């Protein structure tokens, strides 16, 4: 078999004459200078926020990614089916989807949705891969806490079937029975198998309140 070689010619960089180049260069430099002087003379272009002075009025950008949340509808139902796609796709293993069998129907359902903020890079992959649109990134950026265990969140507010399956149940009381409450900082965490200890029960309520206020408002 004959091997055909193709001659590759490096593309020649087009250079004009010296004077043309010089005036081109000066022209493009002037273009840049026009832009910067526009910024200087128009203080409205400033994007800096005077935080924390303007903490009350500060509006975070919609696309700012600071906290993963799970959307719950007005009845408090979420749409997570515990499929674990987000868990598998997270590049840092920041997500642990703990599933369980429903005690009555025997179907797979979400027990705990654990998200570790301390290892999350806010890449948004989890939000994008979820086939049910369950996850949401919120702009609540004031995330400092005094104990790193508080970076481990349980995102779902109840363990139980997802919205679709819950709505199949007509009786409201029966629905309620299927939803077992979950605490935001309660439960086992992927921290060498330890559970969060040393925090009083009342602390959770308090933290949850501030957390809810921050994520909803």
């Amino acid at each position, binding site marked *: 078999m004959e091997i055909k070689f193709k001659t590759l010619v490096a593309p020649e960089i087009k250079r004009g004459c010296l004077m043309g180049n010089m005036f081109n260069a000066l022209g493009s*430099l002037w273009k*840049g*200078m026009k832009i*910067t*002087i526009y910024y*200087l003379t128009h*203080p409205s272009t*400033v*994007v*800096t926020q005077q935080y924390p002075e303007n903490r009350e009025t500060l509006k975070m950008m919609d696309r700012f990614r600071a906290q993963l949340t799970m959307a719950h509808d007005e009845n408090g139902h979420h749409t997570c089916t515990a499929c674990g796609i987000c868990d598998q796709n997270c590049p840092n293993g920041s997500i642990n989807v703990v599933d369980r069998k429903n005690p009555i129907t025997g179907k797979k359902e979400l027990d705990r949705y654990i998200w570790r903020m301390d290892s999350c890079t806010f890449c948004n992959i989890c939000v994008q891969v979820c086939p049910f649109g369950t996850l949401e990134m919120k702009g609540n950026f004031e995330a400092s806490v005094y104990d790193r265990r508080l970076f481990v969140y349980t995102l779902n507010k109840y363990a139980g079937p997802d919205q679709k399956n819950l709505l199949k149940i007509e009786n409201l009381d029966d629905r309620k029975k299927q939803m077992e409450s979950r605490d935001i900082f309660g439960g086992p965490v992927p921290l060498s198998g330890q559970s969060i200890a040393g925090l009083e029960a009342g602390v959770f309520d308090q933290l949850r309140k501030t957390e809810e206020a921050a994520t909803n408002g």
Partner: protein
Amino acid sequence: MNWEIKTVAMFASEALREGYLGAAGYIILGVVAIAGFLAVLGMVLIYAERKVAGHFQCRLGPMRVGWHGVLQTVADTIKLFLKEDIVPFQADKVLHILAPLFTLLGTLLVLAVVPFSPGMQVADVNIGVVYVTAVGGFGVLGILLGGWSSNNKWSLVGAMRAGAQIISYEVSATLALLVVVLFSGSLKLSDIILSQEQGWWIWRAPVVGLVGFVIFFIASTAEINRTPFDLPEGESELTAGFHTEYSGMRFAFFFLAEFINMFIISAIAATLYLGGWMPFHIGGLDGFNAVMDLLPPGAWFAGKTSFLIFVLMWFRWTFPRLRVDQLMRLEWKILLPIGFVNLIAAAFMVMFGWYYGN
């Protein structure tokens, strides 16, 4: 109008007739004035630069210390005073300590001949222009010493780049200076200013003046290592270039020299091409000239110099940094030939008297 040039050096030589004490007093006054001016100007310039830079980039700049951050540089200076001064292990200690002083010395010495206004100048040397170019060379000596003595690769590369760059661009800057020397027929800064009573050289010498001014401005921007020619520092590749290993007060000296140099080249460019403290005059229009004289010469000098400083800042926060080969190409293949042609053209123009107000 008759301008009377008075300098501190003149007062000192007059006082010398009476005795040594008076002369010494004037000399001390001159030195203290320059030192105080240096410190205050440094702080003001750094604050201005940060503020202007902020707004050029859609930011606010310093906002916290004092009203709109006016005291920020004062706070920074205090911090630099209190910081530990580190001399790296196996560095050449003496040179390491001397280097920033050399750099600052060059700056200080030039400041002594800058004519602020007819009655405000420390010394009016009769070889002013030569003195400025010669003494300005101290700066590169300090940079080379600093880079060499730091015992650090980045410092050394930065210093060598600085050496190559400054020595190259000095040629163009000097050629551009000579144009004005040709036209005014004097090396003395005050004479050069007085020669512009009928108009500034930038427009009185058609085209040649403007080209000379542009070349001088570009070349001296490169000489003081300002962006877009800040290769010796080149944060992205050399950490901080020649002053990587400097901290505390010694770093502050380098920093201060850099900012004062910005003032100096603006002042020299204004003196040579824009008439220094000379108000805007058009030869023949006496009424117009009288109106222009209402503003004191000091204000004219301050206005011109601060405009040029602003342009330098504008350059810095707009243009990207050049590559080393582009830098050399710009000097040796573009600026230098143009500078030579410009100088020869200027010589002919002076010979035949082809300029305004002749």
